[in-house]
């Protein structure tokens, strides 16, 4: 089976598919791409199924050598990328010749890029998923980020699935300043003082330095608990804002643990998680409350754009 050799691993390059669902009752975190829309777009561009494994590239990208000719695409964060020293375009598919080197250079905007390779990355699935969860050393390549000397095997391309034309408009808005994230209150908004939801929306929060795939520690207006910062541990959904005693919320992301013991004031809507996944330390977030109807409309619009693209394969 042909593969890709890792010349340089980059800061945190991990193999991700759509996540390890179905095992949270066993304490197994979901993982999966931080920006699921860019992940899915990258797969569509090269003619992969949406669940194929891609490489998630974080802040400082890798250098890779391809053993055979492959169609690839890079979406999400904007990097200067070269193929054997020549610049290549983002957000569209292009051909990589055998033996050539793909190198991620300067990052321009966003935090995470997705490199989809036609045929997909084909490490053995663990509990049904190829997603890397570094903390539990599960999935991907030995449960860890890529590093120099690694070799990852690639799957066989499905000839019936052609590549697609890139979308005219970006599907994920790379974070402006501040990034706008819409939230729905709960599941424990009542564990906070009545003005806490207003406080959450009153000024931007900064993503702290101690932020990673598990979650973003946010610095901004303090949220006050009405009856202590402890609850009986319960499940922790993607995008939830849990608030420890400090009153500074933590936005839980792809690698979050399955359960936690802090009250959760609000939850970022599904449609905005792609934008959240492009944030990194120092970025700012403006939260705004929305309605379930708005959340659903936003998700449907996003899904429609992706499906039009996926079905428009010619």
């Amino acid at each position, binding site marked *: 089976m042909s593969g890709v050799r890792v010349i340089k691993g980059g800061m945190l390059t991990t193999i991700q598919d759509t996540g390890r669902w179905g095992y949270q009752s066993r304490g197994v975190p979901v993982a999966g791409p931080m920006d699921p829309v860019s992940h899915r777009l990258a797969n569509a561009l090269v003619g992969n199924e949406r669940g194929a494994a891609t490489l998630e590239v974080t802040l400082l990208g890798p250098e890779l050598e391809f053993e055979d000719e492959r169609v690839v695409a890079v979406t999400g964060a904007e990097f200067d990328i070269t193929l054997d020293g020549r610049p290549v375009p983002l957000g569209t598919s292009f051909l990589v010749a055998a033996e050539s080197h793909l190198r991620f250079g300067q990052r321009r905007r966003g935090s995470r890029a997705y490199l989809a390779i036609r045929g997909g990355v084909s490490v053995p699935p663990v509990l049904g998923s190829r997603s890397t969860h570094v903390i539990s050393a599960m999935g991907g390549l030995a449960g860890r980020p890529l590093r120099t000397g690694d070799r990852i095997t690639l799957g066989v391309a499905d000839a019936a699935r052609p590549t697609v034309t890139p979308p005219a408009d970006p599907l994920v808005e790379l974070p402006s300043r501040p990034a706008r994230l819409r939230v729905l209150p709960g599941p424990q908004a009542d564990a906070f003082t009545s003005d806490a939801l207003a406080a959450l929306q009153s000024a931007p929060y900064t993503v702290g330095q101690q932020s990673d795939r598990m979650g973003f520690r946010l610095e901004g207006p303090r949220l006050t608990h009405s009856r202590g910062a402890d609850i009986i*541990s*319960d*499940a922790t959904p993607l995008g939830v804002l849990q608030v420890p005693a400090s009153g500074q919320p933590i936005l839980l992301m792809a690698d979050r643990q399955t359960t936690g013991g802090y009250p959760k004031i609000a939850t970022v809507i599904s449609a905005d998680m792609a934008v959240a996944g492009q944030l990194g330390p120092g970025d700012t977030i403006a939260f705004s409350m929305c309605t379930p109807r708005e959340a659903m409309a936003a998700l449907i619009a996003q899904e429609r754009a992706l499906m039009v693209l996926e079905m428009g394969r010619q």
Partner: protein
Amino acid sequence: MNAFQIVPAGDAAFVVEFEARIDPSVNARAIQLADALQAARVPGVLDVVPTFRSVAIYFDPLRTNGDVLLARIEAEAAKPSSDRGTGRPAVRVPVCYGGELGPDLAAVAAFSHLSEAEVITAHTARIYRAFMVGFVPGFAYLGTVEERIAMPRRDTPRVRVPVGSVGIAGVQTGIYPMETPGGWQLVGRTPLKPFDPDRAEPFLITAGDAVQFYAIDHDRFLDIERQSRATAVAIGVRPGSDPEVRSRRRERCADSATVLPVRGGFLVPPKPRRGDGGREAILP
């Protein structure tokens, strides 16, 4: 008794909350509901997660009618609780107590004014309930341990706790499924692996299970460890891929003790102590 409320958690999850206390009967309600929803295989439902007193239902909002799902959950949650239990046999967990495998046994004995043998007796006498599984893959919160041996966590967590370590933290007890930092008082170690993705059944303990520890000596510990490795080889998985499996173990276990009756009673376990969230939250 049947009181519950259903709260949305964002646009892709509902949480069913039962009474806000840690109690076997409340926990049984949550697990019964989770089992029923799992068994129903409702289209669009991605995950069902029971915890001490709640159940989270994760779904794909684009492939699920939220109102229909909500009605379904409500109907299941309103069903009377059955006392059937899980129907699964108790999980019996062999533990080599004390010595290098249980470096805090002496401290727990000093804390409880008991001999090491009496601590072992107290720890093995009870049948514990697995209230929930969380934090890291396969970590079951077992409770509750006898009050006398319910020693709080160590002031300074260990940087590395070996796989299989059996710890006490207040009235909770549990087995470390992977090598992580940890602050529980380590009284022993089991040769069984609570989580092994290469095993036909990767998880040793499921929420709702009854779990009982029994004392083994060090030779038996090594025997079982060898057997489980042999089994792993027999079913065609990677042998020896586990860093915790090491051949050089000279340490000895404390003598196992006879089982004595202990008094009952149920206490609310303290929640796992964490730092201010984020990464520290991984420490059980």
